[in-house]
């Protein structure tokens, strides 16, 4: 199955893209996806990151499903 991972601002400029398709097995958690992504992109690890699943802040325990929209981003700086 495939989940979509979005990047914004700082993470988009580190990763060099705004969107990745990530293939994983049924039953994996958001944390699993997150950790795999950091292994593949160690340059992200210097940041303090937040994770969302389907446009909600995630704890990481969420089991991801096919088509889910994840996002990885740094502490927000709007306002």
């Amino acid at each position: 199955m495939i989940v979509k991972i979005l990047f914004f601002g700082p993470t988009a400029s580190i990763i060099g893209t705004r969107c990745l398709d990530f293939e994983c097995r049924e039953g994996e958690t958001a944390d699993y996806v997150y950790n795999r992504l950091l292994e593949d992109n160690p340059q992200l690890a210097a940041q303090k990151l937040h994770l969302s699943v389907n446009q909600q802040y995630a704890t990481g325990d969420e089991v991801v499903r096919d088509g889910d929209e994840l996002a990885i981003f740094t502490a927000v700086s709007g306002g």
Partner: protein
Amino acid sequence: MDFSEITTETIDLTSVARRVVPPECGATVTLDGYVRQFTKDRETLYLEYEAYEPMALKEMQKLIEQAKREFEISHVGIVHRIGKLDIGETSVVISVAAPHRKAAFAACECLIRELKRTVPIWKKEVYADGEEWIEGDAEKLAEP
């Protein structure tokens, strides 16, 4: 009427403040954030804001609901601008209408603090000699 919006256009303070006014209310408190020319002596040429738009709108809506539970207020309007902003342009406006101004002040202060902590929008400062994505200090949000 409550509303939360993200726009790439100029934000007009008056029209935001006016949209939250119900007939029984007496005061509106409005926070107007704008692009600073200097941050620690370094001159900013302009800013760029980027949003995770659908999530940002959801988070703004949550903030409004929370504020209305916590404070005796009538209506809240939040408008955040994204894209390129010149010095002095308004990046965010939060207007809170309430029967008593004390609640409007408290709610407006709480809303801008929470917006800066939770709403997924990022700011890039562009200087004469480079640019930099600004990281927030949202230490209170759970990290994965």
